[in-house]
């Protein structure tokens, strides 16, 4: 457990230790950090194209049994918008800064995140990665809650409910612990108004569904974060699941795994290189494979494949449900 008490964003320099950093030539790091617009556009256009095409196919199948696989595909692609929220939030996808912010707001809406509070809580996640009772983005608690992880979270039920409640409270000006701990006071009015706009749009979608007497608007806009969420949830669970908490070395708390380009580059914005992302958050998604090559001799071996990574993680999470101190130990002398 952490040895200090967290008070507020203004005091967060207190007891801040240095994270482990691998050795890398500063010139190489600077080159990897440089931004371009074209990789971001190629990825963004491809993603939204397949989202629209799969959504159109799902629309055509509505009312038939084909709707089940069609909406599963659409929902899965939609749920991965969460990875977009993350990467645009780091402002590293595009060189043109306003494009990052524009797509950040769009993907925040898609993934049911209020953008102001989440920008702040995510900075917090990078400062205190998997430090219990401090990091608000811990997916696998200690001890792990198997019902949450493999049912309520797997289908996004808890997350969507929690986000809805948080946005609702913030829209009324009631501060939740996340807001109090992560969002500075002078940013809270922005968060309150952003929450009100989000609430208004969500209510509009629900009213639309009622007026046309159809579930379709909800199937396309609100519910994909639930029915389409299992593959995405398992993918993000791999980021830190089963690994060590309360460490100042991302190699111990974070996992890199290798997947195919559709899963990794297209849907997940290369966040499978998660150790590398936490070590150098300024490096854009399209340079993470190069960063991986540059520092891999200082990192634990990545899991080769999505299934292999799950095979490593799930038994560890099962053990953590009974023994909260258990974690997969990483060989750092690679």
């Amino acid at each position, binding site marked *: 457990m952490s040895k200090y008490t967290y008070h507020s964003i203004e005091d967060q320099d207190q007891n*801040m230790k240095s994270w482990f950093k691998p050795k890398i030539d500063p010139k190489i790091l*600077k080159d990897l950090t440089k931004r371009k617009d074209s990789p971001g556009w190629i990825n963004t256009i491809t993603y939204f194209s397949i989202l629209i095409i799969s959504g159109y196919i799902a629309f055509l199948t509505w009312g038939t049994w084909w709707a089940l696989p069609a909406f599963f595909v659409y929902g899965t692609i939609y749920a991965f918008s969460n990875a977009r929220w993350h990467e645009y939030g780091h*402002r*590293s996808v595009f060189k043109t*800064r306003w494009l990052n912010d524009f797509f950040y707001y769009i993907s925040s809406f898609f993934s049911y995140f209020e953008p102001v509070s989440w920008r*702040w809580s995510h*900075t917090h996640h990078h400062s205190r990665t998997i430090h219990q009772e401090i990091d608000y983005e811990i997916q696998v608690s200690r001890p792990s809650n198997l019902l949450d992880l493999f049912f309520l979270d797997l289908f996004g039920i808890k997350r969507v409910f929690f986000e809805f409640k948080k946005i609702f409270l913030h829209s009324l000006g009631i501060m939740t612990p996340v807001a109090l701990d992560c969002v500075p006071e*002078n940013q809270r009015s922005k968060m309150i108004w952003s929450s009100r706009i989000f609430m208004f749009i969500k209510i509009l979608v629900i009213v639309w569904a009622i007026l046309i007497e159809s579930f379709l608007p909800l199937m396309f806009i609100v519910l994909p974060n639930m029915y389409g969420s299992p593959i995405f949830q398992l993918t993000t669970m791999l980021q830190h699941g089963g690994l060590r908490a309360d460490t100042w070395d991302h190699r111990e708390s974070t996992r890199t795994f290798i997947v195919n380009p559709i899963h990794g580059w297209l849907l997940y914005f290369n966040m499978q290189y998660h150790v590398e992302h936490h070590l150098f*958050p*300024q490096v854009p998604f399209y340079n993470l494979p190069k960063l991986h090559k540059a520092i891999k001799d200082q990192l634990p071996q990545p899991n080769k494949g999505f299934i292999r990574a799950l095979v490593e993680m799930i038994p560890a999470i099962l053990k953590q449900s009974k023994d909260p101190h258990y974690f997969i130990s990483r060989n750092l002398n690679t």
Partner: protein
Amino acid sequence: MKQEENNWHLVCNEEEIDMDDLIRFDFENATYCIYKISDGFYATDGICTHEAVHLEDGLVMDGEIECPMHQGIFDIKTGKAKSPPACKDLNIYPVKSEEGKIFIQINS
């Protein structure tokens, strides 16, 4: 000119800083960043005002410095915080170039 005259301190030779890049300069328990951008040399505090993170690995682009940890953005010429999570401005410092050498003025 003496290096320490009027609190001017030698940082480095001009060619040691690439265009659109920076160099870190530590002096009396404080850290500064000296930048080379298209219209000259500039200097700011070397630590992000959001958290105690060194800006030396940050990205210099379009006259701004982006913090490497949380991507807060500051204007290099004015030190102004332009994008969250950076909210507090950086201090800026006079910089001059003489005979190919860069100096920063620090009033300690």
